[in-house]
């Protein structure tokens, strides 16, 4: 075993990654090969200056404490109050619309996939929606984060759901972020972002979608438009009583 076999042996030797017999063999090779001996010396010198320079970054003061506090918050997700937010009813309404739209999307998907939705399945989905509807309409039931600041909304989702929904404020594009909330749809916890749009609200439901389905779906129901698409393994569904164009514009912002 020599440097002709592989230049990587030299590094493996330096790093103590060769087993004993090979290390011994390479050690004998080093005695007779000045090229390798010099190279090893050069590598050792760089290594010792790296180690001597103490490049391992120390933790910032109070950093560990801060992390522990964040973990405390994540371990016991306390309901966030809706203090000062008068329009929680909007959120409730939006959530329900979203659930309805989500179900429609599922139905659309089923039809799209040539499988007829069985009556039982539709019934089950419908009953889930009714339940969700009743739950969401109960005053004080919602535990939302209300903030126009994406840096408040995004961390709020941390520890509550097993994925990270993209949270951005598009106030400059006339879609100001209103807040976020959690909901349950088809037995799973999903994230919902709420955006304002000229006195209307748009809700965007987001959940992980492991299926192969990358189709985009659009639809309208009782005067509400909805659009559903997939991006980075997440299924999105935006719903509002604004125009379809508004939803497409928001979708483009979220996808960019």
């Amino acid at each position, binding site marked *: 075993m020599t*440097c002709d076999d592989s*230049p*990587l042996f*030299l*590094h*493996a030797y330096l*790093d103590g*990654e060769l087993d004993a017999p090979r290390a011994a063999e390479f050690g004998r090779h080093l005695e007779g090969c000045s*090229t390798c001996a*010099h*190279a090893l010396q*050069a*590598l050792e010198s*760089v*290594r010792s*200056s*790296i*180690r*001597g*320079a*103490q*490049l*391992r*970054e*120390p*933790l*910032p003061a109070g*950093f*560990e404490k*801060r*992390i*522990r506090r*964040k*973990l405390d918050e*994540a*371990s*016991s997700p306390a309901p966030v109050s809706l203090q000062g937010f008068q329009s929680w009813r909007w959120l409730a309404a939006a959530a329900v619309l979203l659930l309805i739209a989500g179900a429609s999307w599922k139905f659309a998907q089923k039809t799209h996939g040539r499988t007829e939705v069985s009556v039982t399945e539709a019934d089950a989905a419908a009953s889930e929606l009714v339940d969700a509807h009743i739950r969401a309409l109960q005053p004080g039931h919602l535990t939302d984060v209300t903030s126009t600041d994406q840096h408040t909304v995004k*961390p709020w989702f*941390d*520890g509550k759901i*097993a994925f*990270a929904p993209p949270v951005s404020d598009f106030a400059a594009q006339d879609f100001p972020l209103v807040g976020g909330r959690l909901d349950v749809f088809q037995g799973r916890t999903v994230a919902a972002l709420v955006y304002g749009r000229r006195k209307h609200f748009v809700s965007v439901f987001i959940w992980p979608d492991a299926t192969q389905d990358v189709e985009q779906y659009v639809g309208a129901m009782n005067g509400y438009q909805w659009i559903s698409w997939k991006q980075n393994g997440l299924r999105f569904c935006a719903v509002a009583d604004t125009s379809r164009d508004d939803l497409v514009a928001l979708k483009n912002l979220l996808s960019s």
Partner: protein
Amino acid sequence: MEDREQFDRLVLPHLRAAFNLARWLLRSREDAEDVTQEALLRAFRFFSGFHGSDARAWLLQIVRNTCYTWMEKNRPMDSAVEFDESLHLSPLPGPEVQAMAGSDRERLTKALEQLTPRSREVIVLRELEGCSYKEIASITAMPIGTVMSTLARARERLQQLLCGPGTKEAAQ
């Protein structure tokens, strides 16, 4: 909460390693603070899925992924350039960089920061964290052979940056 105690006991001791990797990948202490925090929260969220024995490698893997995601989002130009560099070694820096005065620490920091992220991370994991090839492979999701060749290339490049192109025999 039992999970939390386990997490504190197994994962938190590696906070400095996590921060160190983030700092070198992102080349910024400030950004590293944000990203390390995000990575720790993410790790906590996924902790129930951790059944291995090497909590450090597990955490560093999450830190690394969080760093790359962050870079793609916040420094798309940066990562595009660096991606190219990892395929084609960028030209050597001009003599003004090589002749740069300063302490060993500054010189080494500058040199390390000029490496591509892929090269930088293997150096940091190997030389600063003392990870084995196997651990580096699991953290970076690279085969061991790739770890070895990346490390060899990174060291060669580092030597060039530190000493000028005079010590190339190391890679022969």
